[in-house]
């Protein structure tokens, strides 16, 4: 059963068409890779899915409990409430806040007390805050960040900042998790930890994952299906094995074969 269905998605910036006529579907529970050369339009697709950009044309449909919901043109916070959460390529943590606060903030949409209770710290506030801390700590424990809960996000080492971004996205309780180059700048050991982590959270939180990365060892190892974007167009899709052998993909990455040169 498809959970996300994208049809003829197009985005132009002035004369430049960054994403053109991209259509794809994601099944529930899948781990999908989105790859392509630099400037291929991968992050633009993410920004279109999460509402940071408004598509020039095309539709994005989220299917939840049998009901289709059009996402294009909605604000990012509404899309997040519908169950899409993401991480950012260039880490965008709340740097001057603690690890715990970063996670707690992402849980805000489920907080049940109102303005009056936040002014007066009524019992509903105390109860909800306690629950928030407890839920955040569970999440941080899974991501092995629980001992750093009072550290400022900016003081974490790079790999842990990436993990915190994933923790924050998970705190928003998504059904579809979008990871934008989570392995960027990681060494092979860290990448292999990340691989396990992604597999773990997918099973634990019942997630569907869409993953952008340049690290082929990561993508080829854990993704079940891969879409390839080049110059804003979808040029291939298939299993890792198929993609490895696909002529168009090899051309896109290595350039065209010009004969006997």
């Amino acid at each position, binding site marked *: 059963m498809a959970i996300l269905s994208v049809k003829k998605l197009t985005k132009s910036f002035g004369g430049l068409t960054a994403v053109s006529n991209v259509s794809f579907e994601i099944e529930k529970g899948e781990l999908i890779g989105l790859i392509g050369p630099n400037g291929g339009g991968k992050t633009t697709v993410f920004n279109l899915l999460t509402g940071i950009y408004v598509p020039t044309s095309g539709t994005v449909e989220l299917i939840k409990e049998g009901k289709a919901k059009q996402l294009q043109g909605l604000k990012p916070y509404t899309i997040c409430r519908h169950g899409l959460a*993401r991480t950012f390529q260039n880490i965008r943590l709340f740097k001057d806040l603690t690890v715990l606060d970063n996670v707690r903030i992402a849980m*805000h949409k489920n907080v049940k007390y109102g303005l009056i209770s936040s002014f007066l710290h009524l019992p509903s506030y105390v109860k909800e805050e306690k629950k928030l801390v407890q839920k955040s700590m569970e999440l941080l424990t899974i991501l092995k960040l629980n001992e750093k809960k009072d550290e400022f996000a900016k003081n974490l080492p790079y790999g842990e900042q990436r993990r915190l971004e994933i923790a924050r996205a998970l705190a*928003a309780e998504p059904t579809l998790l979008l990871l934008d180059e989570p392995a960027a700048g990681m060494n092979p050991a860290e990448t292999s930890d990340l691989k396990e982590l992604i597999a773990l959270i997918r099973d634990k939180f019942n997630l569907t994952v869409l993953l952008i990365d340049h690290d082929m060892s990561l993508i080829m190892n854990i993704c079940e299906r891969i879409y390839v974007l080049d110059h804003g167009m979808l040029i291939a899709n298939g299993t890792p094995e198929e993609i490895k052998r696909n002529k168009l993909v090899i051309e896109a990455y290595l350039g065209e074969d010009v004969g006997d040169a």
Partner: protein
Amino acid sequence: MAGFFKKSWAVKLVSLASVFILVQLLISAGFIDSYIQATIATICINIILAVSLNLITGFTGQFSLGHAGFMSIGAYVCAIITLRIGTTGSFILGVFAGAIAAALVGFLVGLPTLRLKGDYLAIATLGLSEIIRIIFTNLKITNGAAGLSYIPRFVNWFWIFIFTVGTVLLIVNYIKSSHGRACIAIREDEIASEAMGINSTRYKVTVFTIGAFCAGIAGALYASYFYDIAPKTFGFLKSIDVLVIVVFGGLGSISGSILAAIVLALISTFLQSFSEIRMILYALMLIIIMIFRPQGLMGSKELSLSLFKKAGKLFSKKERV
């Protein structure tokens, strides 16, 4: 854990009550003359203004220069009501009516302007406070440029203390709630906070409205304490004064704002004896302090018991070495 919370609340309550009783005793015993009383009133009014502006600028990251405008709405509404009725009840009514009127204007103006960012928002809010000032200069009910005078004084140390502590506590509580954290997230990274499900426009407008409400209270207290008000009292410079307190105390630090309101009032009282060069010295001091402490007195930290404990630990470590 629960025991700790109760203890810290008890400490807060006792220290607040003792400050109140101490000043009240000094006033009754005649140690505090009317000049010092006026200084205390100014400090408290500035604390309300600075803390509420800090909520908008320091915590939510929205640069507003319109605080004097909201203050003037509170002042005029309260003044008009107490001038007509003239009972303590009417004063309370006036304070809240003024605050609500200011909040309403803040809400209506916030909706379109808070889509602007940074400098643009500053200019829009500056324009707003000038519009409010000019409206008050031209209305009949506000007595034009001459302003209103002989406003009955109902404000005493008791009311000033209640309203100052009340607004500060409400704002501190708000910041420590999930809603407050959402505001801080907007300051830190608006795109990321939106992607995490936070409706940034909604929180900006909420915070702007809360800030306007508190500024309205401050204005009402001002009108009732200082007998007379005129549009020029609430000019551009008043907004700047408040902003100076906020920046000087530290953007994002409530205790910093309170400390700065007190320190700046003391400095300007002290400089009263050098009347010709007073403003030069005041400005010079500000420049020197900002050079050596650009993040403000407190940075974004809060003055708290645990901070003292930390400092104590650091100190005892140094001694041992």
